């Protein structure tokens, strides 16, 4: 560690120490608003820092990259943290949670995500992953008045712990074979003549299981709906977006750095991707609860992302990155809508609670419709361009079968997304009004909407950026 490293680490430091400072402030100062504002400000400053400060070194302590890619995701997660806090404000105040703890945990998780996205070392990867996972364990169960939240926390924790076991063992195997933990090398050295050595293969397989748990690949996805349902929407939003996006981002980074190393894993990934897309879309079809539906839909999306990863081409990686960004924005929007409608009766989740809500809250429900359509991949929204890019890359790499599975999943997903939209505008009797939402929630929604439309109609902006930062 040198001073230069510290400079490169500035955004992370801002997040971590900012979080700590707010934690300490929270211990004395119980008024939530300034703490929240401080948290948002910290996150935004971190984002700005990541954007403005040109890091003097290429990597930090050999564990993390300091390149454009890392900075890009640092900005993204910092912004996500800010948005997450803005959405969470009312939740914190109404539930009487410790704002200091909450804010610091979110900032800390964001730091973990940012680090994970830029991991170039298996130790860094592992630590960063554990960092924000731990934060989420706490955040999910943070509402101590809610039995479901406790249950969700338990489920996430136990599954996460087992996944950690797999991850550790997998990394150990990789290390055993390759003798290094530095990522491109570890990936490269586990292969000889283009094929993975057996243990290394198993090691990667086990890491894949752990990663599969984190990003809910089938059959490791079963926790997802329960946890999304139990977790409060502001946390669910972060969980659905950041914790998954950061992992995928790390994988993209890994692939981008090391070239095609997964040749031997292809079959397995193919299978997992297909299974995941099917399990997610079909699972969502049977749902009667929006949050569970979103959970299953996120499973589908992760399957699609895996397709992009599977391509291993630069096209595929760019597509995946784009997809991650878009997915994060849209999912955040969905959860933000749910959070903004929450009132003393809780968050609207069951379909019955959504029925006819479109007539009461047309604007927010319209946003929800847009978000859902974007998730489904309607042209004109960012979701379409994301799906388009992934399919394009997949076809380029010759994964026609996967694309067809993806098409099937997309059709099914349209079915369930549209069912929700129909629900919103069913008009037997207008639903009882929900909370009107706060300015900060509206701001987040507006930002998500704008992003969905802008990236949908002018995806070039994002694509150009991505192709410049991909390592």
């Amino acid at each position, binding site marked *: 560690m040198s001073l230069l490293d510290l400079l490169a680490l500035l955004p992370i430091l801002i997040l971590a120490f900012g979080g700590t400072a707010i934690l300490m402030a929270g211990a004395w100062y119980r008024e939530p608003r300034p703490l929240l504002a401080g948290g948002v400000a910290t996150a935004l400053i971190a984002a700005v820092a990541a954007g403005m400060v040109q890091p003097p070194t290429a990597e930090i302590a050999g564990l993390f990259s300091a390149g454009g890619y890392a900075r890009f995701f640092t900005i993204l997660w910092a912004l996500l943290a800010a948005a997450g806090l803005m959405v969470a404000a009312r939740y914190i105040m109404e539930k009487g949670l410790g704002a200091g703890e909450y804010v610091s945990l979110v900032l800390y998780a964001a730091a973990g995500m940012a680090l994970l996205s830029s991991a170039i070392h298996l130790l860094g990867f*592992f630590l960063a992953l554990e960092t924000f996972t731990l934060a989420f364990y706490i955040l999910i169960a943070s509402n101590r008045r809610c039995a479901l939240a406790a249950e969700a926390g338990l489920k996430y924790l136990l599954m996460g712990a087992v996944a950690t076991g797999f991850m550790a063992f997998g990394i150990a195997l990789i290390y055993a074979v390759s003798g290094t933990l530095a990522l491109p090398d570890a990936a490269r050295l586990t292969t000889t003549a283009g094929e993975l050595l057996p243990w290394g293969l198993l090691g990667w397989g086990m890491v894949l299981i752990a990663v599969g748990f984190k990003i809910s690949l089938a059959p490791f996805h079963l926790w997802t709906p329960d946890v999304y349902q139990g977790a409060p929407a502001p946390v669910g939003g972060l969980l659905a977006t950041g914790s998954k996006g950061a992992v995928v981002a790390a994988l993209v980074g890994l692939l981008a750095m090391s070239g095609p190393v997964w040749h031997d894993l292809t079959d397995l990934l193919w299978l997992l991707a297909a299974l995941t897309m099917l399990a997610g879309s079909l699972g969502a079809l049977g749902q009667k609860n929006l949050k569970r539906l979103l959970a299953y839909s996120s499973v589908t999306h992760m399957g699609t992302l895996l397709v992009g990863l599977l391509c291993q081409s630069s096209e595929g990686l760019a597509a995946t990155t784009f997809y991650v960004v878009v997915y994060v924005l849209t999912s955040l929007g969905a959860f933000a809508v749910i959070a903004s409608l929450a009132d003393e009766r809780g968050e609207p989740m069951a379909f019955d609670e959504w029925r006819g809500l479109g007539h009461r809250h047309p604007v927010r429900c319209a946003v929800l419709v847009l978000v859902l359509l974007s998730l489904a991949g309607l042209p004109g929204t960012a979701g379409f361009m994301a799906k388009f890019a992934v399919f394009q890359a997949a076809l380029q790499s010759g994964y026609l079968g996967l694309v067809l599975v993806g098409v099937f999943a997309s059709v099914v997903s349209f079915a369930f997304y549209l069912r929700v939209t129909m629900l919103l505008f069913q008009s037997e009797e207008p639903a009882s009004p929900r909370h009107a939402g706060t300015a900060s929630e509206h701001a987040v929604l507006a930002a998500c909407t704008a992003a969905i439309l802008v990236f949908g109609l002018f995806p070039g902006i994002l694509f150009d950026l991505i192709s410049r930062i991909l390592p």
Partner: protein
Amino acid sequence: MTIPFGHALAFAAALFVLGLSCVLLRRQIMMILIGVEIMLNAASLVFVAASAYWRQVDGQIFVMLLMAITAAEVAVALAMVVYLWRRKRTLVADEFNGMRG
């Protein structure tokens, strides 16, 4: 010492499977957590063996940090256990099934 590398790994694998068995077969949250600890220790064994095999320090460092991480995780996990116990007076994992489908 003349242990083939493979044997050390085999021990670790067996330990891992035992840990996994604990996770799968036991219903009590505490025991599941214990199973996870076993799995992590299996990983540690691989790391240490590999560290010796490659004559490197990294494996051992990973184990040290893994222990620390585990400690942190266990702290939270056990706090959760206490919390759940207070809520429900049970630690049978399957009792927590308020959400499904």
